[in-house]
């Protein structure tokens, strides 16, 4: 363990990280946000899921720095009288869970398909890559809208709230696997003909073993880079779906549905209900994307900065 730590301290990754201010700041912001999200019940002043703490009389109170603000609600309240700060923290938690869950699903499907299609080639490869092309030529929003409409009709709007999280994970996860499959396939094609793979074949290992134990570890760095970007994308997709009213219901809001719920009040002067969760979403996605850019530059220095 100590040796691994020592190795890391000598590594190029750590060396470049120490010299990249943007990466350091992004990581700090991201870690802070994730910690807040994880410990939401401890950090948040109120529990927005508990109807007893909500008083409709407190609705649309502006943030404290406004003249009409109240000390009890640091960032004001929304139209239902929920504390904005607490709602945003819980909303970010939901967003992050969906983002990570969706990426885990994408990665699992995409990596597995990419590895086997890339290594075996031939018909298997053609089939999955054409499937990926077809999938990418659909707008995932269209599919999501369709599926969510069907599901809401089937189980009813009330119960839809309970299954919204796994549903969003599934929709976003299934719609994005081709990204992983293509990336992994490309690096498998590069690794497949290297001599260490031939040496493993000469040693008599089965192809499944070679794929998982020899080739897979060598595709990890592109997977890592892609994953950071995909988490940011998944968080945004979730926000987009929720904003359209197809995602998280308003009583268990994610950042996207918060933005949506405040949108109708923006012209009545209660800008904060939309703007603050929007800002948090931007900060969250930006810090993930900046880290992703940094990792991409380190692992693939030949790539041009876009």
């Amino acid at each position: 363990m100590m040796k691994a730590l020592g190795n890391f301290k000598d590594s190029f990754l750590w060396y470049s990280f120490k010299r990249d201010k943007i990466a350091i700041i992004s990581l700090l912001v991201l870690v802070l946000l994730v910690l807040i999200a994880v410990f939401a019940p401890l950090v948040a002043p109120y529990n927005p899921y508990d109807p007893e703490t909500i008083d409709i009389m407190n609705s649309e109170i502006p943030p404290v720095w406004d003249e009409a603000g109240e000390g009890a609600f640091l960032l004001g309240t929304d139209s239902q009288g929920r504390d904005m700060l607490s709602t945003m923290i819980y909303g970010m938690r939901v967003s992050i869970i969906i983002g990570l869950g969706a990426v885990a699903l994408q990665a699992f499907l995409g990596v597995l398909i990419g590895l086997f299609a890339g290594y075996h080639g031939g018909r298997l490869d053609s089939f999955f890559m054409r499937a990926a092309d077809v999938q990418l030529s659909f707008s995932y929003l269209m599919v999501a809208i369709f599926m969510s409409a069907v599901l809401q009709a089937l189980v009813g709007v009330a119960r839809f709230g309970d299954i919204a999280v796994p549903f969003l994970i599934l929709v976003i996860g299934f719609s994005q696997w081709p990204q992983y499959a293509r990336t992994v396939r490309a690096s498998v094609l590069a690794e497949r003909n290297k001599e260490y793979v031939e040496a493993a074949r000469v040693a008599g290992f089965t192809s499944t073993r070679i794929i998982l134990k020899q080739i897979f570890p060598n595709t990890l760095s592109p997977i890592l880079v892609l994953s950071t970007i995909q988490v940011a994308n998944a968080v945004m997709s979730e926000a987009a779906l929720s904003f359209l009213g197809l995602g998280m219901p308003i009583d268990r809001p994610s950042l996207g549905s918060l933005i949506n719920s405040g949108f109708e009040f923006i012209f009545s002067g209660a800008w904060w209900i939309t703007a603050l969760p929007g800002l948090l979403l931007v900060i969250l996605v930006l810090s993930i994307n900046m880290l992703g850019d940094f990792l991409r530059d380190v692992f693939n220095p030949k790539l041009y900065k876009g």
Partner: protein
Amino acid sequence: MSGVLLSVKNLYKHFDISGGMLDQIKFSRGKFHRKKTLVKAVNNISFELEAGETFSVVGESGCGKSTLGRTIMGLYPPNAGEIRYRGDRIDSLDHKQLLPYRKKMQMVFQDPYASLNPRKTIQQALEDPLRYHSPQLNNGEVKDRIDEVMLQVGSDPQWISRMPHEFSGGQRQRISIARALIIDPEFIVADEPISALDVSIQAQILNLMMDLQQQRNLAYLFIAHDLSVVEHLSDRVGVMYLGTMCELSETGILFEQPRHPYTQALMSAIPKLEGGASSHTRLKGEVPTPINLPRGCVFHGRCPYVNRRCIDEVPQLCTLDDGRQVACHGVEEGRI
């Protein structure tokens, strides 16, 4: 134990490089045709290799020598012909049936930087094949075997927890050899094992290979383009040109007096240490592509002794009085 270890008979290996169905369809003379483009890498190769012997295959790049080695190792399935190991056919076995032969036949590769998995420690690289082939060994026995092989290839057993990038090319090549040796094979295909190394390191690896051969009675199929190395190391040599074997003989007589015109040109091109103006035989033209093989003798386009028969008829290997085999009409007819 001696006797024939490996015998290869009329081996062919062609690669289809025409891509998918759509790429293969060609339009000509008002019709669509499905046309395959084949690289004819190995054509009608036959030879035998005895236990404990070093048989070298030399030739220039693209002559099919590496493909030959890989086909013998079962990395590519042959298109036609037979490969026998101690009399058993091994060219059309499935994965399971091949396993016992994998234990006996191993391979050492050219590029010491690509032949070790960059994400595996040396220990993992050595341990995996050993445990796979001998699952009955306990941890202590595995460790003993790894230590023993590391010492044998002249590496420090303490190094096994390191990653490949911590080693120089020569050390990596030692570890590659250790990986091949760990399951105790009796036959090793060595594909240009020293051509990526520096001169002083080359000598170390060659010495190591010769020592190991003595200790373990290994047989080598040594694939190389460096003729001086081949001359030093091998018992017998086969010279390949464009996928075919043009001359096959004991090392001494081959280097003393090459008979095939291509072998002659090849030998004369070796730079001599003593210097002086080179007097190499110039070949006209260039090596044709293995996609469109010349008719008749593959060398006829560049051969100074070419005649009508060479253009029309493919020469077969025939044995001369001194035991060497030459595939040349000119030699057969006594013209050369």
